[in-house]
């Protein structure tokens, strides 16, 4: 779909690493260039017309994100450098001040490093306990296991909506409803789901949510932390600096601005926010439901074709997301990726920043194909044709 809008695709490279980052449509690149060419000024700082324009575009971007995830107010949309910073802002800026030794945080072993590491750090620093919700046999999320993992000490559930290796879609609304009944806060990483499936934070009632623009057609270095207004009011930003205060005379006399500005210290990534807005507009034009339906169809097509090859082991064939994790029998994942690169096919190999999942999979590494709507069945045919070869390891060596 919409392949003509992506200049990169003219290079003839098959790009299957959308879980790592997406490629960018021309309109996003143009929109950012337009900022740099025509009104490259700071936002909320100047009294001249181009600064007024950059401020207006920056705030329009915030409004666009608000509508995209159906937040109540732009006060709940905090720009960050990406999902990693968003999660850290929530964990260190909010939860570190609320939790105490012995409190439990539930995660799963298929979470990304950006989700797990801040909690590990809090376990080391303030004595909270990180516990794992057991996964199903096919490594997907199990709602009954969530319920049985909750104890009177459970204070937070911190998971991805869609995981980056297995790719299963978690029912955030149901998870949140179960947790809220017991007074448990829910922090959801939407880095892999935003731009792939519909997100509605009012409907799901999630407490905090993180997004990276670059995984959904936007530029690098920009993302969002969504938080319910009353929670963000209590969040003590991990970054302090210009733009967040009305006045400061002494340590005891600091007057912070209102939300969301009090959480956005320093010059913001204005071009990034504007590019992010354009990416959302582009996605909205295609329709998020169309994107979800088409990428699911592509995934089914890929799984069905891979299953016909006798040298492929698939780890997540029944998962509805747009990711396929597999290995070629007796070939190290990285060797497969390098072999595919020789055929101009980009895939990811390794543990995908998911260092705990190896406990579950009993293997350290997989090859990951992660699809997006600009991928095609013809590209999948090419991948399968190239994988239908019993000399993959030999041909990966390059000697």
């Amino acid at each position, binding site marked *: 779909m919409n392949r003509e809008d992506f200049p990169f695709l003219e290079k003839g490279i098959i790009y299957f690493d959308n879980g790592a980052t997406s490629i960018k449509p021309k309109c996003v690149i143009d929109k950012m260039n337009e900022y740099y060419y025509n009104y490259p000024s700071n936002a909320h700082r100047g009294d001249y017309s181009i600064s007024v324009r950059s401020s207006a575009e920056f705030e329009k971007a915030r409004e666009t994100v608000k509508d995209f995830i159906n937040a109540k107010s732009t006060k709940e949309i905090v720009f960050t450098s990406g999902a990693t910073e968003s999660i850290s802002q929530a964990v260190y800026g909010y939860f570190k001040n609320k939790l105490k030794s012995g409190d439990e945080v539930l995660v799963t072993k298929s979470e990304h490093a950006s989700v797990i590491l801040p909690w590990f750090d809090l376990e080391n620093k303030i004595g909270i306990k990180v516990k794992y919700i057991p996964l199903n046999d096919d490594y997907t999320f199990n709602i009954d296991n969530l319920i049985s993992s909750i104890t009177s000490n459970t204070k937070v559930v911190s998971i991805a909506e869609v995981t980056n290796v297995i790719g299963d879609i978690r029912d955030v609304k149901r998870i949140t409803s179960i947790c809220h009944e017991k007074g448990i806060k829910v922090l959801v990483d939407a880095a892999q789901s935003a731009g792939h499936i519909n997100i509605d934070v009012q409907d799901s009632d999630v407490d905090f949510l993180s997004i990276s623009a670059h995984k959904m057609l936007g530029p690098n270095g920009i993302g969002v932390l969504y938080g319910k207004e009353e929670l963000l009011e209590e969040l003590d930003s991990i970054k302090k600096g210009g733009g967040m205060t009305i006045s400061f005379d002494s340590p005891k006399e600091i007057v912070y601005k209102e939300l969301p500005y009090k959480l956005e210290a320093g010059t913001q990534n204005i071009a990034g926010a504007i590019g992010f807005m354009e990416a959302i507009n582009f996605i909205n034009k295609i329709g998020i439901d169309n994107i979800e339906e088409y990428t699911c169809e592509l995934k089914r097509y890929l799984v069905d074709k891979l299953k016909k090859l006798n040298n492929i082991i698939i780890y997540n064939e029944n998962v509805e997301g747009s990711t396929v994790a597999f290995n070629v029998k007796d070939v*190290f994942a*990285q*060797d497969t990726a*390098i072999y595919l690169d020789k055929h101009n096919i980009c895939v990811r190999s390794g543990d995908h920043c998911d260092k705990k999942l190896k406990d579950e999979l009993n293997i350290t590494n997989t090859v990951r194909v992660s699809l997006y709507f600009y991928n095609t069945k013809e590209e999948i045919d090419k991948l399968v044709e190239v994988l239908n070869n019993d000399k993959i390891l030999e041909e990966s*060596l390059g000697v």
Partner: protein
Amino acid sequence: MDSELKRELILENFNNPVNKGLLNDPSYIKEDKNNSSCIDHFTIELKLEDNIIKDIRFDGEACAIATSSLSIAISKLIGKSKEEALNIIENYNNMIEGKEFDKNILEELSIYEDVSKQPARVKCATLGIEGIKDLLKK
């Protein structure tokens, strides 16, 4: 050496690398070596006695180029003096970086000459041997 022989040698050393498995013997010095851009990981043990490399062992998981090159390097470096080994390693690294090197010194290790043309493989081909170099310089 023709391509087929090179591949055979690489695959033989990948599937059956020499000296795999650690001894955890206190007379060995030890180093962990990770490739920052991928998952390749080795732990290497080295025993140096009277300036001669008596033994090198390793464990870990890595791709075919990383594992085979470490295996071949281990076979070649055991019995060499520290200086001889460092000279071989320097020539090897020069080869991988596409610089001038002495093929006669490298012998079998020169099968990785073409790695210099594959940027994605450079770190794989040097991971193990860099671990040995670190240990020799300790």
